C-alpha cells in the first residue's frame, strides 16, 4: 500500500479511536456523576494528534521483510515515538493536569499498544491454522 494512503487511513483510524475512547470516558463519568466538558479546540487537537501518530508508520514500512532483531528495534522505536507524541500533545493541548492523570494515560497507552500487536498476531495465527488445514488437502505426497 502506498505510504501516503497508509498514513491517511491510520490518521482517520487513530482520530476515531481517540474520539471513541473519549466518548466512552464521558458516558462513564456522566453516570458516575462527574460530567466532563470538551473545550472548543479539543476535537481538532484529537484529529491533529491522529495525523501525528500516523507519521511514525514510516518506521514500519516493509515490516514483513525484516529479520526479528530489526523488527523488535523498529517496533520499539515506533512505540516510543507514539508515546512521545501522545504525551507531548496531551501536555500542549491540556489533556491532563497532574502526574496522576499522566500516569494513567501512560499505562493505558502501553496496554493498548501491546493489545493491538497481540491481537494482530493472534489473527495471523488463526490464518496460519486455516492455511495449514487447507494445504493438508492438496499437498503432494513425496
Amino acid at each position: 500500500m502506498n505510504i501516503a494512503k497508509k498514513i491517511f487511513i491510520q490518521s482517520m483510524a487513530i482520530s476515531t479511536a481517540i474520539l471513541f475512547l473519549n466518548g466512552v470516558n464521558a458516558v462513564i463519568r456522566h453516570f458516575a456523576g462527574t460530567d466532563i466538558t470538551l473545550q472548543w479546540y479539543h476535537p481538532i487537537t484529537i484529529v491533529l494528534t491522529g495525523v501525528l501518530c500516523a507519521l511514525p508508520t514510516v518506521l514500519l514500512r516493509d515490516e514483513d521483510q525484516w529479520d526479528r532483531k530489526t523488527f523488535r528495534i523498529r517496533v520499539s522505536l515506533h512505540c516510543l515515538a507514539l508515546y512521545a507524541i501522545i504525551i507531548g500533545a496531551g501536555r500542549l493541548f491540556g489533556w491532563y493536569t497532574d502526574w496522576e492523570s499522566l500516569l494513567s494515560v501512560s499505562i493505558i497507552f502501553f496496554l493498548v499498544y501491546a493489545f493491538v500487536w497481540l491481537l494482530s498476531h493472534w489473527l495471523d495465527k488463526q490464518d496460519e491454522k486455516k492455511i495449514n488445514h487447507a494445504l493438508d488437502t492438496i499437498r503432494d505426497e513425496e
Partner: protein
Amino acid sequence: MRVRFEQVDEKEKEQALIRAVEKTADILSAMDLLENGSGGIQVFRDRNTFFCKLTQIYYIESVDKRTYVYTKGDCFESRDRLYELEEKLGMYYVRISKSMIVNLRKIRNVSAEPGGRMVAVLLNGERVIISRSYVKEMKRRLGIQ
C-alpha cells in the same frame, strides 16, 4: 465412466468432481491433468535445455532480472519473466513476494511471524518467506474466506 460437461460463466467457478470407487492410476492422471495441465516449462542449465513438468516445480524466484526454477534438488533458469510464468502456471502456483512464486502443493506447513509475514516450509525442507501483502491472495486460492 460417464462424463458430463456443464458450462459456467467464470473461470473462478470451474471445478471438476470425479465420483469413483477408488483412485486408480487413470483417475490420478486425470486429476493431475486437470489440476496442473498437460504442460511444463522450458528451462535451461549449463547451455542444455530441459522440459520441467509443473508438478516437479517447488518455487520460482527472480534474482537480478533472471528467473530461477527450483525443483526438489535442482535449480534451472527460465527465459520467462516471473509475471509471464505466473500466467502460464496452474492454480496451485501463487505469488508469495515480489520476487517469488511457490507451488502450494509443495508446502509442508506455514507459520505466522510477528509483523504479519509467514514462513513456509517446503517438502524438501527449504524455507521461503510469504510477504504479508500476498497472504490474502494465498488464502483466496486455497478457498479460505
